[in-house]
């Protein structure tokens, strides 16, 4: 039997039900491991041991009652721990967004995604590190310090959900919520060798997700494998009255069965040449091409597909996302929450509080977005970007007329060194070149490990599907993971 902290969700659920271990024992095992490794990794901004142990004890009482009388209702994930990215509100627990401007902010309500975890009986271990307001690809933009990659602590875990990815990879949580605006679930999943799902835009409620780019933000899941990610996805997906952009569509009731092994015949996987960009680390391309051969062995048909506007996705994103951010972050004015830099003039309170408490990347993006939306430049920048976004989305629509899925690398390289891109924002932005198109088109995408480079760093691959096609992504990835072992490797810590 593997160690408690290494169990998958299905193993945890089975173990709790059989009484092999209690939720309190399990939660304590995670807290002890966090205690041992957190000084090296810094995956969490805020730990919630008291809350977690109280939730675990409550779950253990429910299990005890259920064992006496199986008619006692038992929520489906009773007593199962999870970590939550620190941009999603948990009532009563501070939510910083990795920013000094929300350093002491304690939300009075739960995000809908968090509410659904709690209704399902889950135990919240803590809030994971993130680039400030989820703006970044390394967690280096967090005001609370950088998270370190469990595979090589000199390197970044990716971002912005780098804390969640590192926590899962290092077994500091069995599974974690993340968010993805331009790749913030998939890129850290790739850098840390875990499986991460970015659902369709609108599939998961954004209520209680502190906004960055409202037309792009999506709540996702990072787990040891696709079964775990899909399990939590099914809990949090679905319509919510509190988010007017949440899609009012049923969630297909699917199960990932081991009998789906070898059942990819009839699946057509498109591979866009445009994603194998100049400067890509050769080992990344090799690993992805080998994974594609494995998909062929499993019966899928792999064929070329063209997404001809791919190269424009990055500049489109870096106009649209900052434009939306500049509007969303206007609410941080030192009046209603957060610290205030006091002055006897309102104007000074706004500009001093914001100038003092926002970090440099957030200020850079607010200024970029403000410029792109300002009089005289709107049509040339924001307006043109929204038109090119339509062309990018049309590429996907056309491609999905001929293929079921699109496969590509997640990132051009494996995890880079801490500090490597810090003084060059444009180089950092280029990290997102391959994850941004799916975000702009609002289509779901999943990232999972398909190999390691010579340094022993994980390499990821992504599958993108048509809108609301999460089930196909899960089934296909599951078939791949049943046939391969990449997702089973764990860093030595």
């Amino acid at each position, binding site marked *: 039997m593997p160690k408690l902290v290494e169990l998958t969700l299905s193993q945890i659920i089975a173990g709790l039900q059989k009484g092999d271990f209690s939720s309190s024992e399990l939660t304590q095992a995670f807290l002890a491991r966090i205690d041992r490794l957190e000084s090296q990794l810094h995956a969490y901004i805020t730990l919630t041991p008291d809350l977690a142990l109280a939730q675990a004890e409550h779950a253990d009482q429910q299990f005890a009652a259920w064992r006496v009388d199986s008619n006692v209702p038992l929520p489906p994930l009773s007593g199962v721990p999870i970590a939550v990215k620190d941009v999603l509100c948990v009532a009563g627990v501070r939510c910083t967004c990795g920013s000094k401007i929300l350093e002491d902010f304690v939300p009075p309500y739960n995000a809908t995604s968090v509410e659904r975890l709690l209704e399902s009986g889950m135990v919240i271990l803590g809030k994971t590190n993130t680039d400030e307001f989820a703006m970044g690809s390394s967690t280096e933009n967090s005001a609370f310090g950088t998270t370190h990659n469990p595979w090589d602590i000199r390197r970044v875990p990716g971002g912005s959900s780098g804390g969640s990815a590192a926590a899962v990879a290092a077994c500091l949580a069995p599974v974690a919520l993340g968010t993805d605006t331009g790749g913030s679930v998939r890129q850290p999943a790739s850098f840390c060798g875990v499986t991460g799902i970015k659902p369709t835009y609108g599939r998961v409620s954004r209520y209680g997700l502190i906004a960055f780019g409202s037309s792009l933000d999506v709540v996702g899941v990072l787990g040891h494998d696709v079964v775990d990610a899909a399990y939590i996805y099914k809990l949090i997906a679905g319509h919510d009255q509190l988010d007017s952009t949440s899609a009012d569509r049923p969630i297909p009731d699917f199960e990932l069965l081991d009998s789906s092994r070898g059942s990819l015949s009839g699946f057509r996987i498109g591979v866009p040449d445009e994603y194998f960009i100049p400067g890509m680390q050769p080992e990344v391309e090799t690993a992805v091409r080998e994974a594609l051969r494995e998909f062929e062995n499993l019966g899928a048909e792999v064929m070329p597909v063209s997404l001809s506007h791919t190269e424009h996705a990055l500049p489109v994103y870096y*106009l649209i996302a900052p434009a939306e951010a500049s509007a969303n972050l206007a609410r941080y004015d030192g009046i209603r929450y957060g610290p205030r830099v006091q002055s006897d003039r309102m104007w000074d309170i706004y500009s001093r509080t914001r100038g003092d408490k926002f970090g440099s990347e957030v200020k850079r993006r607010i200024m970029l977005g403000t*410029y792109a939306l300002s009089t005289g430049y709107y049509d040339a920048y924001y307006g043109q970007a929204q038109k090119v976004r339509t062309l990018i989305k049309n590429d996907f629509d056309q491609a999905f007329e001929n293929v079921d899925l699109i496969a590509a690398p997640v990132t051009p390289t494996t995890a880079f060194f801490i500090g490597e891109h810090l003084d060059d924002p*444009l180089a950092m932005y280029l990290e997102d070149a391959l994850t941004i198109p799916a975000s702009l088109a609002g289509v779901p995408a999943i990232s999972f490990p398909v190999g390691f480079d010579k340094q022993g760093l994980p390499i990821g691959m992504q599958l993108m599907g048509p809108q609301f096609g999460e089930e196909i992504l899960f089934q296909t990835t599951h078939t791949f993971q049943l046939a391969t072992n990449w997702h089973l490797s764990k860093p030595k810590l």
Partner: protein
Amino acid sequence: MTLTLEEVEHIAELARLKISPQEKNRYREQLSEILEYASRLGDVDTSGVNPTSSVLSDRNTLRGDEPRSGMGVKALLFNAPDVEKDQFRVPPVLE
């Protein structure tokens, strides 16, 4: 494309961000580089293309306009930096 220092100051003012002279110089350089990179979008032919307003074909889903209980003043003021008599306290707005 290169932004002038005055343009950077104007953007910072619009965004209500007080930034230092060093920041102004650095942002001038970095924003110019990023905007230069982004300006390549001008070469894409978008004649007859509609801008994306939503990626979903679904329309916004609105709930019924029915009164519900809220969170209460105490909960909503809990995070405010300066409060008096259940209200946010600010300096005079009109000068």
